[in-house]
Each structure stands twice: as C-alpha cells, then as structure tokens.
C-alpha cells in the first residue's frame, strides 16, 4: 500500500515539476531580455534561437513572425510617464524627439486586438505625414475624440498600447546605445468623469 502511495506521489511530482518548469522556463527564458527604455519596451526579436532551446520552443509555440532585425525595430508602451496603464476615456500626449529611421510609424492597438471601425485611418501616424514643432520635436494627441494637428484615435471604451516601429534604422545595429531621451514620452492629460 505504501509502495503504491509513494509511486503515485513520485509520478505526480515528476509530471507537475517537469511540465510546469518547462512551461515557465519557455515563457521566461525564451523571451530573453526585452530591453526597457523608459516607458518603452523594445520587442526583442526571437529569431535567433541557436543555442537556446527555450527560445526555439517559444518561437514554435507562439508561431509568430516579428519584424526582423534587418527591417527595423518595434517598441511598445502600455503606460504613461507615471507608470499607470493607458485608460479608456483619458487623453494622452506623446511628445519629444523621434529616433533616426528612414520611416517610422506610431499606432494605437486596442487591448482586445480588434481594430475600431471609427477613425480607422487615424489609428496610425507615419513620419512622412506628421507636423513637426518648430524645435524639431513631435507632439501627438492620443484621444478618443478628434483633435487638431497630429492625432491618434484611441479606443473609446478599453485600454490600449502604443507601438512605435522604426524601419531601416541605424539603431538596429546597436540597440544598447539607446537612451531614454532618444524616445518620446507619453503624458496623461484630462480624463472623462
């Protein structure tokens, strides 16, 4: 009786520790170190899986294809300057310099992944079409209702993230040189009561 009990417990421990640790390790060791610069997180490409079986497993499990390093870099932000997550009904202002790139785009991504049909053409801004401040900096309103000037349409009823994609950028060669002051900041404005 004791033998059966020990066998069952040992098998349960083996299965739990084996699969749980594999799941945890693939998620955390496979992702590597996404580089955080201020409010922005650089989505590290997980293309290079050589020598890291956790990364190879994550790559297959997520089955996703990211922007390759030779194409450019992606940064995302889900929080304002105070560290609070972006909220529906609040206005935000993205301001500051933009990193050097042949082309960049800024886009707002609703939390549920579904693009809103309203203001679909204002879900993104591109470097070629924005209006620059006289000091060469950028100022963009992120709000659910229309604004004059550079405006990104935020979803009216749910949280969101902001993505900054840099295409053909020299920063892709050495991302460790990236500093907080190279990227714009996103400040919270007024919220609907």
């Amino acid at each position, binding site marked *: 009786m004791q033998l059966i009990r020990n066998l069952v417990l040992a098998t349960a421990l*083996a299965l739990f520790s084996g699969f749980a640790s594999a799941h945890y390790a693939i998620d955390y060791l496979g992702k590597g170190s996404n580089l955080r610069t201020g409010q922005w997180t650089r989505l590290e490409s997980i293309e290079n899986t050589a020598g890291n079986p956790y990364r190879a497993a994550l790559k297959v499990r997520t089955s996703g294809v990211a922007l390759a390093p030779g194409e450019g870099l992606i940064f995302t932000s889900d929080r304002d300057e105070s560290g609070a997550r972006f909220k529906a009904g609040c206005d935000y202002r993205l301001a500051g310099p933009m990193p050097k790139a042949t082309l960049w785009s800024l886009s707002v991504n609703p939390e549920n992944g579904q693009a809103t049909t309203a203001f679909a053409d204002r879900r993104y801004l591109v470097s070629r079409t924005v209006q620059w401040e006289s000091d060469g900096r950028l100022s963009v309103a992120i709000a659910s209702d229309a604004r004059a000037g550079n405006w990104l349409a935020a979803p009216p009823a749910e949280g969101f993230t902001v993505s900054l994609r840099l295409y053909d950028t020299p920063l892709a060669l050495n991302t460790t040189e990236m500093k907080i002051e190279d990227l714009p900041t996103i400040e919270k404005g007024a919220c609907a009561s």
Partner: protein
Amino acid sequence: MSRFTIWMLSGLCLGGIIHIVAVLGIPIVTDNTPWNGIAGLGRTGQFHLVNRDDTPIGGLDPAMLHAACAFDLAGESSGFELNIEASLWTVSVFDSLGRSVFALAGREPHFGLALVTAVEGEQGDEAEKAAEPRPDKDFAAKVPDDKGFIVLRVYSPYDQERDKVLDTLKKARCA
C-alpha cells in the same frame, strides 16, 4: 534518508527528464509552424496579401501593406524579382520555423533575391553551385532547409502607387 524522501527525489529527477524532453520536443512534434500558417494563405511559391492579425505575421503595422509567400525549394535553389515602386519596402526571409535568415529594407524600384538551399551533402553542394552564376540577383539568402517563407512590407501612401503595388503583389511569385 527515509524511503519516502528517496521516492520524492526520484520523482524530481524524472521531472527533470520530462522538462528536457518537453522543451526539446516542442519544435519536433508541432504542426503549428509559421511555415504551415503562411502556406495556409494559398498556393506556395506565390505572394498573398495579408491583412489579418490572426496569421503568423501578428502585430501588422496598419501603415504598411503586407504580403507573404511560402516556398519549398525541394533541393533546388531558386529566386525571384520584384518591381515595386514604393516609398519604402522591407523584405525578410524566414526558415520553416520562422527564424530570420535574411532581411533588408530598401527604396529601389527593382529588387532581385536568390534563394539558395543550404541542405547538407552532395545535393546541397550542387544546389549552391547552381545558384552561383546568378549575377542578375541583387542579393542571396541561404535557407537552412528547403522550406521557408518571405514577408514583404511596403509603405505606399498614395492611392495610384498603392494600386500598382497591390497589382504587382497579387501576381508575384517567390520561387
């Protein structure tokens, strides 16, 4: 050491083996590879427009046009040429598991890429030699196995230019 402790330590050792087998086994046993996802868009060897986030190319940039083409070189090197008049394009070549093997951004209206198979052994050597005398292609991407796919991202803000790009991509082949 009690017998119970020995059983539990044995369980942990077996857990370690399960951990290793699970991690190394996922890439081998899965059918859900990025290549399968791209090949599911339509005929292999042909570019297909991608405008949904539920494809393996997640997180699509709404500012760009996206097209993808799955290929199977079957031991023979291949290549393709594209004439895209756009403000900016990027092309990236991935192996069947979605690992980047080549990526480039450019603005030139003509682009040629040779896809060179890197299958080991005699067959691979012959294929590589066959790919050598191809000065017509601007670049060459060495693909570690026969299967892979190409993702093309195009920034084309003007309607007339955009229509031309879409027309080109609908007819374009990649291998």
